[in-house]
């Protein structure tokens, strides 16, 4: 695959697109908080990957980390200021909140919870600095190894580790604060969303 991409084989790019457009789209969303921008970033990332084909190392494994790196860089250009990300996160939260009118239909509950979950995650992510957010998304969300993340971001592995560690500390503090604030509620929702989503929402509504 790497050889085919290097030599500019159009079919190789068609395959890359089919395999990774969804991944890049979602990653770009987590980077920017805006689905429309995410679509543009995803599309631009493939164009950029085509332009940069000559820089691909013929040796190596999957091209997924490389593509995620390109996407990260493009999304960063768009979201240069953290203020923009916070605004997007706030907008997502507002949209999720306004949609959370009581409704007993199961599937509606599931859908609402998706939006609330996304809004909650964005809110947490917006507590981080941009570079911390990048390593967190690449290493935890996309499962890149530290060395891969370091290579695609062009930073030393040690920096990846320290950023990730700072990101974890911040988020843990945030979660603890959230827990204290919501002690009266059935449970911390941000943790409970690991489990069955529909149930989470129902118990939360019953608790109110």
């Amino acid at each position, binding site marked *: 695959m790497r050889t085919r991409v290097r030599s500019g084989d159009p079919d190789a790019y068609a395959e890359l697109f089919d395999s990774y457009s969804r991944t890049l789209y979602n990653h770009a969303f987590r980077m920017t908080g805006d689905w429309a921008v995410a679509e543009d970033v995803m599309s631009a990332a493939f164009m950029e990957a085509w332009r940069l084909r000559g820089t691909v190392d013929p040796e190596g494994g999957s091209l997924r980390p490389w593509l995620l790196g390109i996407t990260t860089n493009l999304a960063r250009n768009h979201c240069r200021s953290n203020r923009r990300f916070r605004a997007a996160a706030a907008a997502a939260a507002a949209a999720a909140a306004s949609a959370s009118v009581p409704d007993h239909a199961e599937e509606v509950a599931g859908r609402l919870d998706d939006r609330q979950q996304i809004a909650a995650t964005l809110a947490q992510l917006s507590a981080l600095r941009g570079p911390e957010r990048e390593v967190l998304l690449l290493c935890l*969300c996309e499962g890149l190894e530290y060395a891969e993340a370091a290579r695609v971001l062009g930073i030393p592995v040690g920096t990846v580790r320290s950023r990730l560690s700072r990101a974890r500390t911040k988020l843990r503090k945030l979660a603890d604060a959230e827990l204290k604030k919501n002690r009266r509620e059935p449970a911390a929702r941000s943790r409970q969303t690991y489990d069955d989503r529909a149930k989470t929402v129902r118990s939360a509504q019953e608790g109110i």
Partner: protein
Amino acid sequence: MNADLSRRHPAGREENPLPLPFAERELPAGRHRFHKERLMAQIHEDLRAADAHPGMTAPAPARTARPRRLFLNRAFLVPAAAFALAGALAAGFLTYVDRGAADGRGSTIATGPAMTTRIGTADDGKGTPQLLDRISLAAASTGGGAKVRADQFIYIGSKTATTYVKSTGDKNTLVSEELHMRHQWNSPDGRDGWLIEPGNTGPKGMTLGGKNEKGETPTPYLNAPSYDYLAGLPTDPDVLLKKIYEETRGMGRAPDQEAFTTIGDLLRSSYPPAELTAALYKTAAKIPGVVVVDDAVDAAGRHGIAVARLDETSGQREEWIFDRQTLTYLGERVVQVQGEAGEGGLIKPGTVVATTAVMTRTVVDRMKEIPPSAG
């Protein structure tokens, strides 16, 4: 979540402070295909430019020459998306429009005055069953038809051109493309393929394989068949006829014409086993309104006898052309025989609306391999 994973990520997932995995979303409907086509158009444009200026073949390693067009303005994206969603345009055409916009002229195929012909004389249809019977026998006895292994490809090389109304400003003129070669390869299961046709693809061609925008592998059917699909069709003419009518119900303007066109498409652009070809001729004989035309000429200039049917709604006659002696299939054309059609009635009787001559049908070992017999 297995031990391996947590070793790779020493901090462990249970410690993950985020409510991950995040709910994922698919691209909005149609956008996968839209963005993929834009990417492929860009790639083909660059490759063509590289061909034209060999000095520039090396891909730029750093961000230099090309102006950055990372965030396309949505004013362009939205109408273009509507375009793609309308679904009226084939993938190749969209690519072609993109390229046309990028470098202006040169990417389109040359056109000239509309093709015209002498309209052959049709019989009353009484001779049709007998002629089709002879054609069917000839098809079966030549032992033709493909025998293809799963790792091989069916190649069809044809010479073709169509006529259309071209709008320049507010002026409409009827033009015909210049006759050109169309090279097509298909894997027997239909999952892989390649097409090279000027005006439709770049000089390197485009893939006919891959998945649709839903990420599904398209299932072959009567109007987009694979070799394997055709090999599995019934060869009893009555059963086949019933199937054709059923599967094309509601399509086209009239059921009989639609059935005739469906068989015509199979004869022209597929290479089924000989038994099916023979069965298709016998099936066509059962469609009402099929006539014999005394003379017709294919896109390669070969004259022959034709089996034809007039589409009363358009006044156009589809003619399947056969060698008068051997009764081998030569090609197909559509001729305006009565009334006028097209925008402003520009298509007058005697106009050749579309024409194709099948030059080579064979099995090759690799895609993009042009057999020596197809010069």
